């Protein structure tokens, strides 16, 4: 009997080794590079230079603003959509949902190319409204990732709770605000975690739209092309801290099944 249990457990050894070597170790290396200089000596210089430079601090706040505004826009568009899809009386609900998430399977660079052509047509020079267009671009790119977790969450919502609330005299608005909305928080949380961080770092969207970017991702990109691994690692580390804080803040709201990007399929 002992041999059997050992046998099954050992199946995870290759994956565990893989995770240690290529997920955990790289992060430790980034930590090491962030606090050393080119000669390998310990230094706080990268840390200080990030926080004393108005450009990099500005970039941090610009990315945060862009990320938050994009997330709010996605939420405002996705919530009513997911609500109507999950709770509306439509026939062929799954086909309808497919319509909304199909774009996920089209390469995002091609989608942004399409968006850029249309925006240029409407606005003329896109670079005139960088923030507005950044928000449009990011929302366009990440909207399906917000719709899907919200839909899954709203679909499995227990209808008897809603009926009970209205039987007990709550009007429609109250039922929504006091029952539906609180119960859909896990969906909102996993949607937010899927949109907030990418929209703070995906500089490709902005770079394709108007050839220049001012977000955290592009800082890593520019240090990368300048072969400056130490300052690049410091940016990566700061992003990791932000990710950690977001995870910490949202952890208690998320339920296991619909957590993060795992909800896609």
């Amino acid at each position, binding site marked *: 009997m002992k041999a059997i249990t050992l046998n099954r457990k050992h199946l995870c050894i290759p994956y565990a080794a893989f995770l240690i070597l290529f997920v955990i170790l790289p992060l430790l290396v980034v930590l090491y590079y962030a606090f050393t200089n080119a000669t390998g000596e310990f230094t706080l210089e990268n840390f200080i230079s990030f926080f004393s430079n108005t450009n990099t601090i500005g970039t941090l706040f610009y990315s945060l603003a862009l990320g938050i505004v994009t997330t709010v826009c996605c939420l405002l568009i996705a919530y009513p959509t997911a609500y109507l899809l999950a709770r509306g009386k439509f026939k062929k609900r*799954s086909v309808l949902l497919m319509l909304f998430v199909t774009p996920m399977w089209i390469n995002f660079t091609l989608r942004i190319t*399409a968006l850029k052509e249309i925006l240029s047509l409407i606005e003329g020079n896109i670079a005139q409204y960088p923030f507005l267009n950044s928000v449009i671009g990011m929302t366009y790119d990440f909207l399906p990732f917000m719709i899907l977790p919200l839909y899954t969450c709203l679909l499995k919502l227990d209808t008897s709770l809603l009926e009970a609330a209205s039987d007990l005299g709550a009007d429609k608005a109250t039922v929504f605000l006091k029952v539906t909305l609180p119960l859909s928080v896990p969906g909102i949380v996993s949607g937010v975690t899927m949109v907030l961080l990418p929209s703070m770092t995906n500089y490709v969207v902005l*770079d394709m739209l108007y050839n220049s970017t001012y977000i955290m991702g592009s800082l890593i990109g520019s240090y990368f092309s300048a072969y400056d691994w130490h300052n690049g690692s410091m940016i*990566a580390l700061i992003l990791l801290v932000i*990710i950690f804080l977001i995870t910490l803040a949202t952890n208690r709201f998320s339920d296991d099944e619909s957590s*993060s*990007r795992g909800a896609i399929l």
Partner: protein
Amino acid sequence: MKKVLPVFWLCLVLAFIYLPILILAVYSFTDATMVGTEVSGLTFQNYINLFANEELRDMIVGTFVLAIVVSCIATVLGTLGAIGAHYSKRLPKTLINGANEIPVVNADIVTAFSVCVLLIILLGINKDTFVPLVIGQVVLCAPFVFLAVKPKLTQMDNSLYEAALDLGATPSQALWKVVLPQLIPGIVSGFMLSFTLSLDDYFITTYTKPSSFDTISTYVFNATKGSQTEIKTALWALSTVIFLVVVAAVIVTNVVSRRHKEER
């Protein structure tokens, strides 16, 4: 009357999602080099360029080969990891689950940068061997396979495995013939997810790829920087082709799954 507003909203959102792609698709059949400019004639030239240009063809084939290789490795690793973790004691299980979450919540660019620093800068592995690229993309994909297989393991009826053992199967036979078939839906969706993640990936590819190799993402990105209109409009054709393939795939899966339900 009550249904008008919801339908209107859904149409509005669909328009936002699809209009750019559809307008680009229409223009891909014309000789215009910019959307909105005057069209003087309809032509398939963009599609001819797409399939005749060797560089474009190699890039598309390369993207798909890479996606298949990466998805296969990620599926095997992630599935084995999920099975092993399921039967492990609490502590190793928590550790693996936790480590598995890191690439999932992490920004792609941080994953890409850290893998690049470890493999290429610190260990000095040559980019041209494709090793850093494949490893990097597996880091991105395998955790999703793990997450796709995990729920199937918890839903699985454990007594079937015990029954197989009682009936004389060896543990590995029982695993292969009893446990694994129950996980197939999870494994398939994990594989599909890996495939789309790999196809869509820009950051890991750009940080770890050989300099002469391009995937669709990196190629399109670089092409928008260039001024070759022939390439640019050929990419409109590519976008249209991919759109049609995806729509066809969605329709086929829907029809197949409906047949499946009817048969039952």
